[in-house]
């Protein structure tokens, strides 16, 4: 029978299936961070259970950690409750024999940056993490999904998850991405097409030549935001680009084992004529730079567009949703998106906190200054390794000279659990993944964009089409 990539991953991990379609799914890799694990470990301790395979778990701290004064270690925390969570994770890892990249480890960083970077994420595996953006790892042809804390405990104790097989959705993106358009624009556009709940109950496989030509970092950006359309996971088939990325990564197999793994990985694609439950086609050449105007990632439009009119929406629930979003964002229908002034720029997160993202920003701002009206412009590398690489290339100096702050790795202003927050009423061009009310700080307003668009916004003090800047550069 013809199988989709997802069928292959699913079938190779089913311990058993019952008659109503529930399966017990074996989990190969578990990544853990400080915010969603404490109660799970507590549950294990309370019931006297042990993790089944502690050596399959990788832990790091990211959500709560301050992004300044890292050399101070735990004393760098101003929030003592956050600090307790970080020390609790360290204690739990120590107690159960789990490998942790702690605050002082040069490999510490955001879970979804660290896993792939270290080769802990491998093709063909099932991977979970108590974090919805775990879909990121699907870029490696792995079935990777976010889970709740009860399920974190369940996977620790049993190395399995109980679930029904999700349906499959193929998103086919053909054609060439125009110059200046990035993977972030591609995924924001896809979310706009699918809607916030359009992929609920599905696993998305991204196919087509526009996907094949993306680097691994770009593919991760695409898969990362699958959850913003409601998908359980995102997937991209294995190819030479995946192979090149993985070769020699610290936790990737070596020697004969690598050869054996590689032979298997090369089977990780959807067979021709495999049947998907649903299919969407997108023409890459028609994608423009995207920017969100509302408080959901699907409230997105090309930079050349205007804020839409709620009254023009057919659906009454949507009308209400649009009105609420525009009230929160303090935007009225008809305002041109490229006339919206911003005062904050955030470059980072598990969506766009990798080396290529930082390189893109540095290229655009080199020798220039950010606009005077910008109150804060942050660049937060996704991991210690990203930070080190960027510094090796001198990118930190370029960014600092342009007026950016160069920080230590963590989630930072993506969800503002650490001290990096938008003040009430601030308006931010952000490379992160969620523009929910209060996401970057109570009363803060978020416009999601690509790193290139964020750089352009930093320089001009407003949302603008980065292609104009690029044209001026040439």
């Amino acid at each position: 029978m013809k199988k989709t990539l997802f069928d292959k991953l699913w079938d190779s991990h089913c311990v058993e299936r019952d008659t109503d379609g529930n399966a017990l799914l074996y989990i190969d890799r578990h990544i853990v961070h400080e915010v969603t694990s404490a109660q799970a470990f507590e549950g294990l301790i309370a019931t006297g259970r042990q993790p089944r395979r502690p050596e399959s778990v990788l832990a790091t701290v990211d959500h709560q950690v301050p992004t300044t004064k890292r050399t101070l270690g735990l004393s760098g925390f101003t929030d003592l409750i956050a600090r307790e969570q970080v020390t609790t994770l360290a204690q739990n890892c120590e107690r159960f024999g789990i490998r942790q990249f702690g605050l002082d480890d040069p490999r510490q960083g955001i879970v979804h940056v660290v896993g792939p970077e270290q080769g802990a994420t491998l093709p063909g595996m099932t991977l979970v993490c108590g974090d919805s953006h775990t879909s990121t790892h699907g870029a490696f042809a792995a079935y990777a999904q976010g889970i709740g804390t009860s399920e974190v405990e369940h996977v620790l104790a049993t190395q399995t998850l109980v679930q029904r097989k999700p349906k499959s959705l193929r998103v086919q993106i053909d054609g060439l991405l125009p110059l200046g358009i990035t993977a972030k624009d591609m995924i924001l556009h896809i979310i706009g097409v699918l809607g916030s709940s359009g992929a609920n109950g599905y696993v998305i496989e991204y196919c087509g030549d526009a996907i094949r030509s993306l680097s691994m970092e770009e593919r991760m950006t695409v898969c990362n935001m699958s959850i913003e359309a409601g998908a359980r996971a995102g997937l991209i088939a294995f190819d030479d680009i995946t192979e090149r990325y993985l070769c020699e990564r610290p936790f990737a197999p070596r020697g004969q084992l690598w050869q054996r793994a590689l032979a298997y990985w090369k089977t990780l694609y959807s067979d021709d004529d495999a049947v998907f439950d649903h299919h969407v086609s997108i023409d890459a050449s028609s994608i423009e730079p995207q920017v969100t105007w509302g408080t959901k990632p699907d409230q997105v439009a090309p930079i050349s567009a205007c804020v839409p009119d709620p009254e023009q929406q057919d659906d009454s629930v949507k009308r209400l949703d649009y009105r609420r979003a525009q009230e929160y964002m303090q935007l009225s229908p008809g305002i041109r998106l490229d006339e919206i002034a911003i005062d904050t720029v955030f470059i980072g997160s598990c969506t766009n906190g990798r080396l290529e993202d930082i390189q893109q920003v540095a290229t655009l701002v080199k020798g220039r200054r950010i606009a005077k009206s910008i109150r804060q412009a942050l660049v937060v590398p996704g991991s210690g390794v990203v930070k080190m690489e960027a510094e090796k290339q001198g990118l930190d100096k370029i960014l600092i000279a342009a007026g950016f702050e160069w920080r230590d790795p963590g989630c930072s202003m993506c969800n503002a659990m650490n001290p990096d927050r938008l003040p009430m009423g601030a308006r931010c061009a952000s490379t992160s993944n969620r523009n929910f009310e209060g996401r970057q700080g109570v009363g803060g307003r978020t416009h999601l964009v690509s790193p290139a668009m964020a750089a352009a916004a930093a320089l001009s003090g407003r949302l603008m089409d980065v292609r104009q800047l690029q044209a001026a550069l040439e």
Partner: protein
Amino acid sequence: MQPLQQHQGIIATMNRANVDTDAIMPKQYLKSIRKYGYGDWLFDDWRYLDPGDVDIDTSQRRLNPEFELNQPAVAGASILLTQDNFGCGSSREHAVWGLRDFGFRVILSPGFADIFFNNCFNNGILAIVLPQDVINQLFALTEAQPGLPCIVDLQQQTLQCSSLEFSFEIEPARRERLLQGLDAIEVTLGKQEAINRFENHHRQQFPWLFEAL
């Protein structure tokens, strides 16, 4: 987990689509390492006029009189009626702990986000998906009579509200677990042998997945 067979309670409404878990339980409360005590922080940004944090006494904060759940007619509500894609966004189970600790046992919606849906059932909350027209009828009923009582019967898979009765469906395995209040881990640990067998075979087939980190 607290079992649920039949539940009778008041319906509170939230006529909003795409309510995300950041709104249900804002980030500052995720610092807590407890599993209980989240009820006062449920919908915190919408519910109170002044900002809160884990170490701020909620009883001293001013309630937002406009917020749905602050209406006197729905005081003590244990059934939440909402619009589509409820619980989208972050996987934080704290959102469900907040709903549970506030007193909600049942949530009615045209659709839920996947991770949130699982989190509900892992904490004894019955999340029921109903067709949009049934949801619309329920909204109309509750608008006419705020604080409308309702009886939910999981055994029969029915919902009774004023003179109307609706049926719903819950996957048999989930239903069984909730009816009996079973611990999911305990159930799976009963399948150790099958897991062992699978794991041995998996290890032979994919040895590189078993290298220690």
